[in-house]
């Protein structure tokens, strides 16, 4: 495959016209710092949005996003175009990083749910998003990942399979089980209302 030169990649960023393909950008990013910057800027939005939705705190999310992109730089030379789609590969790095963080957050999540339940019903409306996030954090990690990728990132079953490196049947069963668990946690609180 013929790679785009750095000049072409830089020009593509600032000028209208034919842009280098993602595969060209990825291959160039293995050797060219500017292409790596372009790759970072291209995917930063999606990765940070996903991490932010799962974590909720901007400072923590920033740290985790930084870790994800540092991992990207470290493992990029091993990434082969044509295997896992690049976006799915990045989601995999992000999911693994967030899961490592989430492992230590389950107790805090239960505490958050408990605190929200103590709030005034009128005040609870402001806690809705935090309540959903905390409920998600109480799920076992393999359910959290599938549910978050499906509902937050709107990935298909096949795409989630690519991200997590597991069969579609596994994704489906985890999604069904995770959905039921989450629904029971959410409706339990709604029943309290």
């Amino acid at each position: 495959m013929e790679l785009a030169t750095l000049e072409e990649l830089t020009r593509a960023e600032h000028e209208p016209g034919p842009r280098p393909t993602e595969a060209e950008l990825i291959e160039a990013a293995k050797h060219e710092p500017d292409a790596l910057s372009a790759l970072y800027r291209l995917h930063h939005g999606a990765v940070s949005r996903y991490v932010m939705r799962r974590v909720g705190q901007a400072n923590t999310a920033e740290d985790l996003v930084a870790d994800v992109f540092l991992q990207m730089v470290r493992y990029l030379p091993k990434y082969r175009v044509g295997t896992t789609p690049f976006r799915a590969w990045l989601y995999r790095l992000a999911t693994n990083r967030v899961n490592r963080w989430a492992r230590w957050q389950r107790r805090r999540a239960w505490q958050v749910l408990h605190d929200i339940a103590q709030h005034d019903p009128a005040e609870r409306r402001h806690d809705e998003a935090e309540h959903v996030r905390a409920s998600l954090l109480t799920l076992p990690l393999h359910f959290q990942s599938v549910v978050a990728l499906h509902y937050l990132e709107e990935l298909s079953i096949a795409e989630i399979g690519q991200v997590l490196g597991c069969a579609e049947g596994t994704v489906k069963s985890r999604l069904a089980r995770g959905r039921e668990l989450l629904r029971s946690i959410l409706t339990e609180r709604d029943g309290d209302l």
Partner: protein
Amino acid sequence: MRDPLEQAFELLKADSTELAPNPNLEHKLMTEFNRQRQPRRWKKVLTVLAVLLGLTLAGGGIAMAAGFDPIRLFITVNEDGSVKTLDAQGNPTDMHFEIVDDDGTTKTLEGTLPPGTYQLEFVPSKPGVKK
């Protein structure tokens, strides 16, 4: 009625914002990128050095082994004066039978030997000096 789960996630999505690209992180990534390249360049240099060392040792080993074993050739001079040469394994060889003296004069063996089979031994000496 909408699925409460979907409603809940809609809320969460609406609440979360995207982080802006961070120039400090970009700088960190570049530092990591350069750090990654550094050991790889050294690894390349070390690999080349290791290969060269290996070749030198192997070459030295072969030279040592060959240096003490003379190369044997068998020459058969036929009745009609034609010369047939065979190496130690009995394979025909294309050897020239010109001997160059130190003063530059050459001598050929052809026709100077009576019919029969002769064994020649080529003992390696200093490079560039033909015997």
